[in-house]
Structures are given as structure tokens and as C-alpha cells.
């Protein structure tokens, strides 16, 4: 009898955590999905209303801007962060004297909140007292960098700050992968007479495909969730020129009492994430089983 109970202990112990996740993640997703098909405004109502919230959502210019911003932001952010991170990792791998210190410097932004990052960059880039004013006061009258208040350019400011924050992380990821590449292969390539550049471009980087994939997935996940950075840096402005879907959702749900549209936009975000994450997680779990 007691033995029976003891046998069930692992399940009993896992149960609370699993139930929490089941309710608070999957239950809530279903709830949000349901609400997105209702007329909910300030308070949730539970009478189904078809796809109306989605039609409304897609007809809003604000959502259009937010969703296309997401693609501009995400693709630039991911590409630039991977290029910079990769470059820094390769350079740091050249027996650099102050490697430890440099690594610390490159990575520290990752420890900071996006709100702080946004505050810092907002201050540096504000046209009246920031870098622009500084360079002009030094006599470089024509210097102009007012992207943060330019409605066509403000989303790129978000990209700059996000790259600043996350590229060090990509560097760390790549550096640890570089360090675990089989040294014998590299020695063999040297003996074959390949140059340093050739070895990196032809052998090492291609062998790091999985790391590129991880970096891509993590960064795109960060990009889709990006919310705080926009809040602190541009406030979504000027106007709503630099909003991202996450900001849109927050605005609709908490400021404008449009719970239905908020829910619909959240579901769109979930669909976007799922399109990237599910194949990735699936292959990761599969690979583990076979490996």
C-alpha cells in the first residue's frame, strides 16, 4: 500500500507545476482565443461574435503599422545582431589579450532591463540635448541625427538599441560554440594549407549551423515579445509610427478598453511565434531522442 503511494510520488510532485502550466498557459490561451471571437470591450463577454474582431483588427492602420514594423524590426535586429555577434566572436577567438574584459563589456547590456536601455538611448539620441546637439556645438553644424522623432525612422532607433542590448549575447553563444569545434579538423585544414579566413568561412562557421539556428530562434522570440524597449525609448511614437504588436495589444487592452481586439492581436502574435517555435522545438526534442 505504502509502496504503491511511493511509486506515484514522482507524478504527485510534478502535478502542481504541470497543473499551473496547464491552467495558466494553455487554459489562458484558450480563454484569450475565445474572447477574441466575442464582442468584449471593457469587460469580457462570452457571447460568440464570429470573426468580427479580426476583421476590425486587420482594417486598423495602427495594427498594420505595428505588424509591418515587427517584420522590419525583427529582420534587421536579427540579421545585424547575428552579424555583429558573429564578427565579435571570431575576432575574440584570435588570442586577444584582454579577452575577458572585452567579453564582460560586450555582454553587460544583457543584464540590464529594456526600460533602462530605452532610457539611456532616448537620452543620448534626443535632438535638443543629445548627440546631435553635442556634435553641432563642437562646430559640426550640419550633423543631424533626429531619427527618434522622425516617423519614418523611429523604428530603426529601436533596432539600434535592441542590437546594442542583444548582440553581446549572440557573441557569447558563438564564442562558446567556436571553442567547442573539433581542433583536429582545424589542424588538418592548416596542414592542407588553408588560410585563416578560409578556415573560418569554409569549415568553422558552416559547422555551426545549429548555433545560427538557436540564435535565430532566440532573437526572433525576443523581437516578437519586444514591448518595454519601445515603451521606454519612443513610447511608440511619433504618433504610433514605432509601435510593435505587443504595444498595440497593451494599448488596446489596458488603455482603450478594447479587450476583444487586444485578444485578437495577442492570438496573431501567438500564431507568429508558433510558426517559428513549433518546428524548432519539435526538431530539438526529436534530435535529443535519437542522439
Amino acid at each position, binding site marked *: 500500500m505504502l509502496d504503491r503511494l511511493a511509486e506515484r510520488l514522482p*507524478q504527485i510532485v*510534478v502535478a502542481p507545476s504541470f497543473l499551473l502550466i496547464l491552467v495558466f498557459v494553455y487554459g489562458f490561451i484558450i480563454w*484569450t482565443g475565445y474572447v477574441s471571437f466575442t464582442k468584449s470591450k471593457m469587460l469580457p463577454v462570452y457571447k460568440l461574435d464570429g470573426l468580427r474582431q479580426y476583421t476590425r483588427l486587420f482594417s486598423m492602420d495602427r495594427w498594420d503599422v505595428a505588424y509591418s514594423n515587427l517584420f522590419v524590426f525583427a529582420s534587421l535586429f536579427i540579421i545585424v545582431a547575428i552579424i555583429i555577434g558573429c564578427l565579435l566572436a571570431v575576432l575574440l577567438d584570435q588570442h586577444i589579450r584582454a579577452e575577458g574584459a572585452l567579453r564582460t563589456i560586450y555582454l553587460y547590456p544583457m*543584464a540590464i532591463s529594456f526600460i533602462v536601455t530605452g532610457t539611456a538611448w532616448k537620452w543620448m539620441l534626443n535632438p535638443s540635448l543629445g548627440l546631435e546637439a553635442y556634435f553641432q556645438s563642437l562646430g559640426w553644424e550640419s550633423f543631424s541625427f533626429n531619427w527618434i522623432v522622425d516617423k519614418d525612422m523611429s523604428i530603426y532607433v529601436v533596432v539600434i538599441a535592441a542590437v546594442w542590448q542583444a548582440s553581446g549575447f549572440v557573441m557569447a553563444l558563438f564564442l562558446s560554440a567556436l571553442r567547442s569545434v573539433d581542433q583536429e579538423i582545424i589542424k588538418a585544414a592548416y596542414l592542407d594549407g588553408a588560410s585563416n579566413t578560409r578556415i573560418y568561412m569554409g569549415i568553422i562557421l558552416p559547422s555551426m549551423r545549429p548555433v545560427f539556428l538557436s540564435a535565430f530562434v532566440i532573437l526572433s522570440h525576443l523581437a516578437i515579445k519586444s514591448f518595454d524597449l519601445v515603451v521606454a525609448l519612443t513610447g511608440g511614437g511619433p504618433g504610433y509610427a514605432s509601435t510593435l504588436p505587443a504595444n498595440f495589444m497593451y494599448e488596446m487592452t489596458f488603455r482603450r478598453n478594447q479587450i476583444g481586439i487586444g485578444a485578437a492581436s495577442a492570438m496573431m502574435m501567438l500564431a507568429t511565434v508558433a510558426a517559428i517555435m513549433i518546428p524548432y522545438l519539435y526538431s530539438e526534442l526529436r534530435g535529443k531522442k535519437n542522439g
Partner: protein
Amino acid sequence: MANRDRLPGTDGKGRYIGRFLIYLTLAVFAIWYLAPLYVVVSTSFKDLAEIRGGALLSLPHEFNVSAWHKAWSQACIGVECTGLKPYFINSISMSVPAVLISTFLGSITGYALTKYRFRGANIIFSLMLFGCFIPFQVVILPMAQTLGMLGIANTVNGLILVHVVYGLGFTTLFFRNYYVSIPDDLVKAATIDGAGFFRIYWRIMLPLSPPIIVVTIIWQFTQIWNDFLFGASFTTGGAQPLTVALNNLINTTTGVKHYNIDMAAALIAAAPTLFVYIVAGRYFVRGLTAGSVKG
């Protein structure tokens, strides 16, 4: 690690120019990463007149710590002019329990999932793992309702619950990946020796876990301390965590802008996680890479 430098590389002058370019690039990037920190720190020690003078990149004429004082205990956030202090305390009393609870739950769940592969363990793990990667926007609405129903809306306790729940996936992932590398035979041997589930956990698994406990605690602390979305969605006024208060402070539009106070406030908000990063950077990096290379 490698003795690649002993292998024949490029020769002579080309080599020196190459080395120089490498160091130059690295230095330029170092400046880029450090510039915002430098500007923020130096601004926080300047007085308003000096800031208006526009010399963004110059050092302060004299070190003036009054902005720090004000940010800590006098600055107005909304209508309350209490400084950041109460919010700092909020953040502490939110993060510490949330970190400890989620770490503990993750560790015992990870242990049960790896060392007792009961039917469905893999599915449970996959579901928990995917839970880490949802955009939280999709749970905010029902969470707000639930917190209200539980009577912990707009409280630090409510935020603790939220952070425990949504941190569980990651902490379980960390511990699972760590425990997978501990041989099953250890658990079998202990079972034969007569130890049960909890005794094996307590006497054998936990004593082997300090490295991953440190990694998890640092990861969770950074995540929870830096969170803004949950804080902004579920709290207002006196229950806000530090990040939310900081954002309110900075985006207050009434009155004169005190940039020095803003910057000091930002530094106060960043200080704990930066401190952890500098003290335990090695574990911090390990957490980042562990969180990214999954399975």
C-alpha cells in the same frame, strides 16, 4: 584552448596590420557598448545647468550626488513624491520569493521528470517547454481576471504568483538538462540502499546541484527584476515594481525635466542585476547559453 597561434599563420607585416585591425575593431565596439553607460553615469552626476549646456560627452565639472538622493527618496512618480525607494523594496520583495519558489519547483520537477520516467513525462516536459516561448500577451488578459478573482490584483503577491508560473518552464528546463547528465545508476543505487524519492532528492541530487542552482537563480533574478510587462499590466500606484516606477518617472511630462535624476534612477534600477552580472558573470553566461541551447 587551441594552440592555433603556434601554427603557421600569415607572416611578417601583414600579420601586424591584421592584428592592429582586429584590436581596432574590438575597441570600437567596446566604445559603442560602453558609451550609453558612460553618458548615463556622467549625466547623473551633473547639475541641470551643466546638462543644458549640452556637453553630453564631457565629464561632470564636479561630482554632484544630489540627483541620486532625489531619485532615491524624493522624485515624483505620478502624484507620489517618494522617490524610487518603496518601489525598490517592492521589487526586492517580489523577486526574492519568486526566484526561490520557481527555482525550487523547477528543481524538483526536473528531478522527477528525468529520474522517474513515468508515462507521459516527455509530453509534460514538452508542454512546459513550449510554455516558455509563448508571447505573454496571450495570457495577460485572463491573468488579470484571475488575479482579481484570487483577491491579489495590484499586489506584490500577485506578481510573485505570475513570475513563479511563467518562470517554471525555464527553471524546469535548466534542471532537467542538468539532471539528465547525472547517471541514473546513482538513483538506482540509492533506491536499493533504501532511500525514497525525497531522500534521494535531498541527500543526493541537491548536493550535486549547486552549479545549476546558481545559474537558475541568476537567470530568474535577472528576468524577474527586469520585467516590465507584468508589472505594468497588473499593478498601479504603490504596488508597482521598480521598472514600472522608473518608466513613469521618466515619462512624467509635467514640470521641468530633471535629466540627472532620470539617469540616476535608471542606474538605481540597473544596479542589482549589473552587480550580479559583475560578481557572477560566468554563471550568467552559462544561464544564457543553457536557456538557448535546449533539449
